[in-house]
């Protein structure tokens, strides 16, 4: 097996709210090898972003991590001090968010925001000159395939289109992502032709620079052409994990099967059935399989015990008691 860059093991995350304790993540495990492209799919509210925020250690202040470990390059991320964490953010890992409009500060020019990041991540020790910083910033914008980088440095975010804003965010993340890039639904808020451009750009950048990447999306088609390994999340648990082709040709978990079926196909054939019901409330969630309430094959035992991840070969793991019979 290739050398692992990131290993999340049995991670749990709860949120303290007025009503009580939201038990969001429950035993999430994932691993990302060096230069590996990994995808996470699942519906909204199933904990994809929370998992990534935990990895970046940028969870909201009401979040608690009762158990689990996150190993990143021989560091235990959850035990890292602030200084050390900052060093990693500066030199090793970065994240692109879903909504570029919200990710950029509307009252500062793109140049000011980008140069801050450049100063912070590229020149950690000696004080760089203004010109050095600017050259680097222009270089980053160019690598994100932005035309007229000088003009963009001098623009406010609202003067740019959604696609250009997302390219700016990609440029920012490239300043510090030397090893791991986390892309949280980078194309979701964009039009389909622009999303296509952004995904092609990301793929090229990641391959050129030899980065590891975690791509989060609920657009199953968008991840398919990008990643080599896929995780399927449901209600704060990893339900299935497999190499991309294997997952699409042989989905085993009932949730994955239904999810793949629910995507309307370009070849027609009518709209398939969706999945009845919705994600259970994290406030009242029980100990059983979290998909049981929506699962047609659920037995009584499913509601009592949570299934562990069964290894079924070829790097394919599934968390379902009845995976063989479905």
């Amino acid at each position: 097996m290739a050398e692992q860059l990131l290993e999340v093991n049995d991670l749990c995350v709860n949120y303290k709210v007025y009503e009580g304790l939201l038990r969001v993540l429950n035993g999430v495990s994932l691993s990302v090898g060096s230069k590996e492209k990994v995808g996470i799919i699942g519906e909204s509210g199933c904990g994809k972003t929370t998992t990534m925020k935990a990895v970046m250690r940028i969870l909201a202040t009401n979040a608690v991590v009762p158990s689990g470990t996150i190993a990143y390059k021989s560091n235990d991320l959850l035990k890292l001090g602030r200084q050390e964490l900052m060093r990693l953010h500066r030199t090793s890992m970065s994240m692109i968010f879903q909504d570029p409009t919200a990710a950029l500060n509307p009252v500062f020019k793109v140049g000011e925001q980008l140069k801050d990041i450049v100063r912070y991540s590229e020149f950690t020790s000696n004080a760089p000159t203004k010109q050095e910083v600017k050259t680097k910033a222009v270089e980053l914008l160019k690598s994100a395939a932005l035309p007229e980088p000088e003009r963009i440095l001098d623009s406010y975010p609202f003067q740019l289109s959604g696609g250009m804003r997302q390219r700016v965010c990609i440029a920012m993340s490239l300043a510090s992502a030397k090893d791991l890039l986390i892309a949280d639904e980078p194309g979701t808020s964009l039009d389909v032709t622009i999303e296509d451009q952004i995904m092609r750009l990301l793929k090229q950048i990641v391959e050129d620079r030899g980065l590891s990447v975690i791509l989060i999306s609920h657009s199953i088609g968008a991840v398919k052409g990008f990643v080599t390994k896929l995780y399927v999340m449901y209600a704060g648990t990893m339900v299935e994990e497999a190499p991309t082709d294997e997952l699409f040709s042989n989905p085993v978990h009932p949730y994955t099967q239904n999810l793949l079926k629910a995507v309307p196909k370009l070849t027609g054939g009518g709209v398939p059935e969706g999945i009845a019901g919705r994600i259970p409330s994290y406030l009242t969630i029980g100990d059983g399989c979290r998909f049981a309430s929506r699962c047609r094959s659920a037995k009584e035992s499913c509601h009592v015990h949570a299934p562990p991840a069964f290894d079924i070969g070829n790097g394919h793991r599934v968390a379902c008691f009845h995976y063989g019979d479905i």
Partner: protein
Amino acid sequence: MSAEEIMIVKGLKKYFKTTRGIVKAVDDVSFSVMKNETFGLVGESGSGKSTVGHVVMGIYGPTAGSITFMGNDISMGVGRRAKELKKRLQIVFQDPASSLNPRRTIGQILELPLRVHRLAPEGKYRERVLEIMDLIELPREFAERYPGEQGGGEKQAVAIGRALATGPTFIVLDEPTSALDVSIQAKIINMLMKFQKEFDLSYLFITHNLSLMRNVAQRVGIMYLGKIVELAGTPEFFSNPLHPYTKMLLSAVPVITPEEEKLKPEKVTSTGEISGALNVPPGCSFHPRCPFVMDVCSKVVPAQIEYKKGHYVACHLYNQA
């Protein structure tokens, strides 16, 4: 035409005056919707597809052009439309979180259109509301709950129930599932398809999702910067796309099966972005992004021609013969 045209839109224009100039949101759009048909309008943000839906609904009156509904001219704003007409025409918006009043219970939301149009005898409204809730498969006790407590799918079901309450014949669906997850989307679409059969509805379905369109619409029109650039029956549209923009859109659709991959036209790599409606490029508005651009494209607006029976395209590539 053999089938009955329930809605005919002809030469529709909608311009908005702004301080920075005139925005031609919809510029000379013509199409018709048959009885019991789903007509799909596809385009990127800023292409004017929602504006078409809004003008049809009378949310604002058209700048020019005519809309004919069941033989009557309805080219006026909603304020001058007959109440009976409003009963026949309904709309479902994209985001149910903002189209439903958060301070009204679901029961109250569904009751309002019934009261406005006096669709039940006094004292019987409640009964009718509960019947609608059965129809949209919501448990009856949800009538006392607020939309904010519900998931996106339930909220959109309420918005659909509200549109159905008046017994319409024509519904504008303005991206009804874009805010929803795919598993919920499939449920909502199936519900809409069922109601179409059950109540003889015609739909104007507005979306940017081509895969979805393939499965719900009988005919599809593609909009780009206020104009329909291609219009065809769904099978023809997907097997033989003509306009370079259509090909670009189809190339960009993320797909998950090899069969779908085969169906895609020759790859037209997406470049550039849609320009603002304030400074529409001269000639064919798509020419700055078009890989097959010719000299004439930047000068002359291409006319819409009937390339094949029922397959219309507005592109100079097909205009020479």
